[in-house]
């Protein structure tokens, strides 16, 4: 009996020792794992692809403010990183690739160029875009309802050229010649010269496509004496209209011609007529999409959104005597300045 109790006692001791060793090993492993994972959790990085600097890019500030307003908890826990891109496609591509190496949680591509650069980079990380290019035509997404891959966003593809010309015709039936100011990127991606000219012809007008890249070229183009030969100028929603907005408006007013714009801001800035997609929803929607992606939602399953409202803005009153508008169009306008 004594010997048996010793054996039992010995077995119990061995069991206790084994249990103790297992417990210690488990604790050690847990500590290692915990040490590895318990490093301060990395705050999600939101990489924003811009074309200027973080301090000068108003769009970036607007995006950050919108995030903090609509999703304060997410914004407080995230790091906003500004990627200084470039208008140069190759430089932009390199910047996007370099940013991807730092493994941001999501990349924001607020322009068509940045969206295309992110698409070409075949990034493995989620990308939320907002662009004026057609994402379906440019191959950024496979479907508007199910984008697939890792990109989703907002399509601001503008196909209102014909409608705008129609409004111009309704506003000033006497207009016969229209100068269409655009940049070459629109031409290369849309190939829309023929469409615009056909729309104009249907309305009894002749459309002449003019290209400018920047403010200098705008000055050179609209400062010529023959600039006044056109009855009206249609400024398409392109990069040049953004960078040389006020110069263009000033030239058109100087020329005393009808100005047709693609945004209400240009009418607000002095333009005569503007018919635009309502883009007021863009920043809110962009912030919402970024938040949903950070929450783990698959961007490829989030449909691409589009503007659903259109705004007609006109200007009347002093300074527009040379370019009177019909009462029909004024009554139709959503905004009258």
């Amino acid at each position, binding site marked *: 009996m004594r010997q048996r109790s010793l054996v039992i006692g010995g077995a119990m001791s061995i069991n206790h020792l084994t249990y103790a060793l297992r417990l210690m090993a488990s604790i050690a492993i847990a500590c290692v794992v915990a040490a590895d994972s318990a490093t301060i959790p990395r705050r999600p990085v939101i990489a924003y692809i811009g074309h200027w600097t973080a301090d000068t890019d108003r769009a970036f500030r607007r995006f950050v403010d919108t995030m903090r307003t609509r999703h304060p908890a997410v914004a407080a826990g995230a790091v906003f990183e500004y990627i200084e891109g470039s208008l140069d496609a190759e430089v932009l591509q390199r910047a996007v690739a370099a940013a991807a190496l730092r493994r941001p949680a999501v990349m924001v591509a607020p322009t068509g160029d940045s969206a295309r650069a992110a698409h070409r980079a075949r990034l493995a990380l989620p990308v939320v875009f907002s662009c004026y290019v057609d994402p379906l035509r440019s191959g950024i997404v496979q479907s508007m309802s199910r984008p697939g891959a890792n990109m989703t966003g907002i399509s601001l593809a503008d196909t209102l050229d014909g*409608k705008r010309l129609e409004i111009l015709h309704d506003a000033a039936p006497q207009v016969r010649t229209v100068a269409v100011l655009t940049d070459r990127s629109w031409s290369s991606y849309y190939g829309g010269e023929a469409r615009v000219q056909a729309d104009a012809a249907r309305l009894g007008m002749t459309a002449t496509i003019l290209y400018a890249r920047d403010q200098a070229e705008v000055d050179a183009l609209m400062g010529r004496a023959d600039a006044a030969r056109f009855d009206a100028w249609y400024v398409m929603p392109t990069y040049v209209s953004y960078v040389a907005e006020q110069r263009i408006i000033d030239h058109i007013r100087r020329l005393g011609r009808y100005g047709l714009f693609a945004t209400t801001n240009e009418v607000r800035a002095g333009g005569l007529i503007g018919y635009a997609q309502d883009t007021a929803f863009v920043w809110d929607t962009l912030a919402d999409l970024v938040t949903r992606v950070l929450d783990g939602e698959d961007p490829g399953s989030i*449909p691409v959104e589009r503007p659903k409202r259109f705004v007609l803005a006109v200007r009347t009153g002093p300074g527009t005597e040379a370019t009177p508008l019909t009462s*029909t169009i004024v*009554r139709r306008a959503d905004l009258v300045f």
Partner: protein
Amino acid sequence: MTGRRRTDSPRAPRRSIARRYAVHVGVISVSLLLASSGLEMLFGYREARQQIAGVQAVQAEAAAREITQYLRNIEDGLRDTAKLPWGDRAFGWQQKREEFYRLMVLFPAIVELQEVDADGRESLYVSKSEADRIDSGAPLAERALLGVAGDAPRYGSTFYREGAEPYVRLAAAQVARTPSWTVATLNLRFLGEVVSGLKVGENGRIFVVDASNRLIAHPRATHVLRQLDLTQFAPVQVARSRAGPAPLLAAEDHDDLEGRPVIVTARQLQSPDWLVFVEQPRSEALEPALATLTRTLLLIAVGGVLALVASMLFSRRMAAPIIRLRQATRRIAAGDLAHRIELDTGDEIEQLGDDFNRMARQLLESYRGLEAKVTQRTAELAVRKEEAERANAAKTRFLAAASHDLRQPMHSISLLVSVLRDRLADAQQAALADKVLLSVAVMEHLFSSLLDISKLDAGAVHPEIQPVAVDSVLAQLAHAYGPLAAARGLSLTVARCRGVVRSDAAMLERILGNLVANAIRYTRHGGVLVGCRRRGAALCIQVVDTGIGIPAAHLDDIFDEFFRLDGLSLDEEKGLGLGLSIVRRSAEILGHPLRVRSVPGRGSIFEIEVPRVDDLPSQQAMPPLDDVDRSALAGAFVMVIDDDERNRDALDALCVHWGCSVLAVASVEEGVRQLAQHLRAPDLLITDFRIAQGHDGVDGIECIRALVQEAIPAFVVTADVASGLQQRVAEAGAVLLHKPVGADRLLRAVSAALRPREDAAATVDRSAAPACPPQ
């Protein structure tokens, strides 16, 4: 299981009363608390669900009304436009075009308007994004929208443009000379804005499903853009399976599109056939109930703890007097009858304590009374015991004295009559002497019986258990009772037996002698047989007779004192009826089982079972009767020491009659003195035990042996029956003979002692012998 205690020792309580009360009260309190709280929670939950159902029903009603109103406004707008006299002067196509634009401004959801004729051909097309068309003649995409003029506006099926956005057509009939319709294309994303503006709690939602179960309006626009078919969605399935004006779903539990649990209510719009769903996260909807539940649980916890604490305190207070009562009763039970219980509870427990105190007082009084009685009775018993002991001692002394005083003259008479008988030549005189001897034998037997029964009554019989040669006992029986049997014309057959048993020789001989005497007395014809049978580790000594037998009814009575089978005895020598009583008592004292079997008219068998042993000390052996060699006695020098003159003279005469020369002295000193005048040492010593002048016979034997330096054979003939005498005599190397000793028996013993031996030259160790008394 009755749980009876096997002993009277107090049991430790398995559970204290305080703890038991605490557990019971606590459990009851907590159970009641739990039950009431559970019911409260249940009813509260039900009420919450009912409230949620009511609220959601109102919300669904309001949402349906809002959506319906939204659509009605558009319909009204179309109707307003349709009622104008288009085609008349000032109501041409340009005016209509402007009117359409006005509608699109008023109703942002309208993205395009068409006017189609009865054949569904377009006459006017106005769009927010596309170029207007006049008289294009293009066919209407959904010709099924066109009904009968005057019908209510009709809705088409949901379709998608731009790849994702949902649209629906609304056709309103125009009141004109020629039937026509105004068809508006509505962007249903604007309906999403309507439902987004409807609040359902903090995180609730309202969404709309069209007649094809497509999601057409949802606060999360991307859900709509996914073009989700909700035919298999559980709430839609359930709603579609029901019909009626009442809510198709009434606050039922389902999961939403993200898989989260929600409470859903659904209503159906009258036109179009759309379903409106109101859902709210279950956690949010039941938050008040959950808050109540949380509060209730918290209260239960707090209440439960308080209840337990209170129950513990209360039970302790309640159990305290009981525990004190128990402690006090324990002290009383332990013998402290003077202890009193002091309780001041003012209830039945205090009364119980008073009762215990009364009981303790009575117990104390009874105990004291009992002690006094016990003391008194003990004193009385002590007195009686002393008297009994004195009586017993007197009886013992009487027995010893009577035994010694009666046996002495009987012994003398027996020896002297034996000598006389041997000297008588005349036959008649010899016959008379025989009769005297016979009468002496009878008297000896009667005295022995009375003395024996007295000794047994007094408990003065102390057997000396030692190995006994059965054959010597049987030989003595044959010698003693053979003549008696022959005188009655009976045969006495004693079968020899070499066995050795462990018993008291004298008592065994007495037992067997009584049995044989009884058998002879109650046998008319035939005889008596004495034999032995081995029975395992014992030896059964049987006395078989062919007597008159014993009736079965008296088989136990025959062992009673003074019992005789009256009328059956043929012997003139009637006994006292003590023989078998002595046999039974003696057998009981020796521990020998005694049995009797009898057949009336045929005889009886008495048997006594005695344990056997393997060997027998040679000094105790008695020679058989036929081995008596009287020639060894001729010329033997016998020394007799006895302070009784009669005994001394009788022994002297007897030994002389045997041919011995005798030196008879009254004391050891005289014997030593007279031996000095003899030239030879005695060949045999016969001495009484009680000799005057403070010495006994054993001392005398040792003294004489030491004097002559020889181990002279010696006999101690005494009437003394003291315990230890047999052993002392045996240790002295002598033979003990109890008076009265018959002449024949004495002759046999003397002849055996004087028989020549191989160790006849054995000397005595003078150093071990006591010093002889001074001259």
